[in-house]
């Protein structure tokens, strides 16, 4: 089974520029998550989609971050304008609740450096 795909793997931009990340979840997974992982910390949930609807975006800085999952499959996360503190790894994960497990499958992440 193919895993969660993300692109690009690395991105370097200057502050105030915009950037977009793409995620393709595991086929058939209804739930998609975007996490921000700052160096040395655990992942922090930014937004959770169930199919193409937003379940939780309480920690998404909505003045600069946006995300969409229009067809309920792949998703994009955008930052505009970027700040230095946005430097982090952006992880996409997907899950399909079956039985008693809530396991989330993570992609390799996109490492963003804002200079």
């Amino acid at each position: 089974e193919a895993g969660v795909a993300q692109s690009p793997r690395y991105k370097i931009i200057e502050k105030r520029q915009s950037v977009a990340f793409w995620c393709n979840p595991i086929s058939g997974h209804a739930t998609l998550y975007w996490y921000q992982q700052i160096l040395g910390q655990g992942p922090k949930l930014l937004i959770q989609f169930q199919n193409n609807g937003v379940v939780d975006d309480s920690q998404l800085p909505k003045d600069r971050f946006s995300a969409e999952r229009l067809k309920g499959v792949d998703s994009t996360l955008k930052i505009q304008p970027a700040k230095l503190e946005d430097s982090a790894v952006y992880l996409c994960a997907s899950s399909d609740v079956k039985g008693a497990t809530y396991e989330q499958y993570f992609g390799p992440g996109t490492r963003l450096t804002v200079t």
Partner: protein
Amino acid sequence: GESVGLHLPTLSVQEGDNSIINCAYSNSASDYFIWYKQESGKGPQFIIDIRSNMDKRQGQRVTVLLNKTVKHLSLQIAATQPGDSAVYFCATRGSNTGKLIFGQGTTLQVKP
């Protein structure tokens, strides 16, 4: 707010020894707990999970122990191997929020 923390940022063990990584959580309503392993340049990978109605669960070379009284979770790795070197995260799921809260991670270093 809700928090999840690990006791040690770094753990160094000799190859072949057993490793124990500890985690404390604050939300007594947490009903699901999960351990992830993250190797450099990769996303977190599921290791083992446990629900709040259990206090122990075993996998292949790994055991998770849950003590709800003191809100403590541990991951035991038997016969630690060089391939176990990674950052380990515990995460809890609050039954009232439904989302995973991750701890900061413990780096496991395995010495040959």
